[in-house]
């Protein structure tokens, strides 16, 4: 076996990531303001999708709580921004989400299949309605204003979250925990019998994925300037990451990236002109992908790739 060859191949992927990250980090110096804002929102969707895939993509537990953790981040930011540096606000937003997810996960991750999906869907609405009730009853207002931060800072912080998420995903995928998560997805009882601490692993992974969602929410809140429970806990943000991940395909690391980028860009060009048509197109895309492309685009790419001579060995 050619050891040096394997090592160099292993270095290619991180190498590409570092180059892409460096190119992106310098973006505010050569791109227009619109470009920066566009890339920021695409990054937000990538963060939500990839962090959703960390947990749900491997274990098969369909979580629809993305909007809940994102919203928790937003509210943390709405309460704290302006009083302490924004970076700390973002970290706190992530940590609060982490805490909420750990609590919720510990309570509910023994639910199987659709029960878990239903519960997480209910969680978003539970937090939203409790907050609406609380705000009207005790603070007397429905929404809150968030201190504005300039676009470059938002972009760099988002990119920072993205980089940390990438490293985390890479580490999880290539560690024994990644294998254990896949084992849970394949056959949970068999995984438990092989010595995997199933409950612990599920709760921690669920909480880690929520950490990034919360952090992304905390920084996005500063861009929106005004938030209320309806905006912060928008149920669409629970479905979109699922759609993006399925569209991109979850078997490969690049699948969710691809899906999030394409659909987020579609949203950007369609949302302002045709808001309802855009959601309608989403519905049609989701339906078509579930019916005809169960492996997503990356699965399709892989299928074609295998047809080329030598493609099989190059793609391992």
């Amino acid at each position, binding site marked *: 076996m050619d050891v040096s060859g394997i090592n160099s191949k292993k270095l290619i992927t991180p190498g590409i990531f570092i180059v892409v990250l460096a190119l992106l980090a310098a973006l505010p110096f050569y791109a227009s303001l619109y470009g920066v804002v566009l890339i920021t929102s695409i990054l937000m969707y990538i963060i939500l999708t990839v962090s959703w895939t960390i947990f749900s993509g491997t274990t*098969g537990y*369909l979580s629809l709580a993305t909007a809940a953790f994102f919203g928790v981040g937003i509210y943390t930011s709405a309460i704290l921004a302006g009083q302490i540096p924004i970076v700390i606000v973002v970290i706190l937003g992530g940590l609060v989400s982490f805490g909420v997810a750990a609590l919720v996960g510990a*309570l*509910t991750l023994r*639910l199987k*299949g*659709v*029960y878990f*999906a*239903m*519960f997480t*869907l*209910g*969680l978003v*609405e*539970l937090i939203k*309605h*409790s907050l*609406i*009730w609380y705000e*009207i*009853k005790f603070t007397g207002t429905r929404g809150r204003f968030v201190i504005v931060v300039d676009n470059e800072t938002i972009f760099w912080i988002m990119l920072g979250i993205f980089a940390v998420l990438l490293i985390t995903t890479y580490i999880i995928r290539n560690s024994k925990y990644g294998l254990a998560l896949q084992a849970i997805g394949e056959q949970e009882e068999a995984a438990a019998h092989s010595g995997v601490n199933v409950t612990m692993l599920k709760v921690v992974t669920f909480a880690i994925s929520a950490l990034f969602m919360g952090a992304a929410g905390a920084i996005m809140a500063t861009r929106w300037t005004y938030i209320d429970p309806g905006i912060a806990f928008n*149920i669409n943000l629970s*479905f979109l990451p*699922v*759609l993006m991940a*399925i569209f991109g395909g979850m078997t490969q690391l690049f699948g969710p990236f691809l899906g999030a980028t394409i659909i987020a860009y579609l949203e950007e060009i369609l949302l302002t002109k*045709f808001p*309802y*048509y855009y*959601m*309608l*197109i*989403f*519905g*049609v895309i*989701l*339906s*078509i992908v*579930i*019916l*005809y492309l*169960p492996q997503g685009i990356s699965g399709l790419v892989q299928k074609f790739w295998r047809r080329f001579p030598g493609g099989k060995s190059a793609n391992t």
Partner: protein
Amino acid sequence: MFVTTLDVLIAGLLLGGLYALIAMGLSLQYGVAKVLNVAHGEFIMLGGLTTWTLYIVFGVNPLIGIVVCGPITLIIGFIIHSTFFRHLRESIPVFGEISLLGIFIAVLPFGLNQPIVASVIIILGIVLDIVLYKTVFKRLSPSTIFNQGAFEGKSMLFSFGLVFIIQNIAFISWGPDYRSYSYMRFPVDIAGALFGANRLVTLGFALAIGLAFYIFLARTRMGKAIRAAASDATTAGLMGVNINMVLAICFGFGAAMAGVAGVLVSMCYPVNAAMGMEYTIIAIIVVALGGMGSILGSFIGGFILGIIGSIVTYFEPGLALVAYYVIFIILLLVRPKGIMGK
């Protein structure tokens, strides 16, 4: 004090009748067809908005709206199940689904006032459907192994797609405004407490439909086939039940119950295109409360949740939905199979 208690209880029963009807439909779809139909609330919305249009534009009595909306939603539900969900069930494409997708896609050019482009897309869809069916799909054989877990996950995701499609077609046709009309709003006196006549009609219809459906299940041949499919669809199919037909009819009945519930909802509350999800979640909670797949359980669960909602609303108006979720969470943790579950 007695009058107040009675007041709250009756209000709860009136609300509960509506919940029971909605939940029975979902229970039928989930219990028999194994589709956790997240688009259930969208059929309620369709029923409500159609009735509004019929009443305001054409002056049709909302009670006649039930006769219109019930069959329409039944047919829509039947078609959706016998194309898309049958595809997901058997893992092979079914004739007709590409045409339907073509119609969904054609909404976009229609909205942009380009009927020619829209017609071309629809015709293309139908042609593609026929050609593909005759050449490729016909040779595929349905998968014999039915993986329930995988089907439940996929069909739920597919119904999310339906939510987006139906909801946004409604947004395009009716706009985002809240619609309401006044019909049978005169008060009726029950033991000293006053209630709108429309509420009482709602309860009456919910009870009547529940009873009629129960008799249908217990006494007819189709009812027997449905009960057989509910306990084991694959075996029922081997015993000569036309399983695709039965499951599609079940799904259609579920959708029709949602459509009728929508008519009744529109008589009591304002309706708009975004109202569906809230009712879906309530229906899911009631079904979980009553026990997955138990139609009687959903019926009873609906009334229980209605009474709880009414009591909570009496003490703290903003918290009714929150109370439902809390019940849902406690229920899932303590007794996930529900009160009537096996």
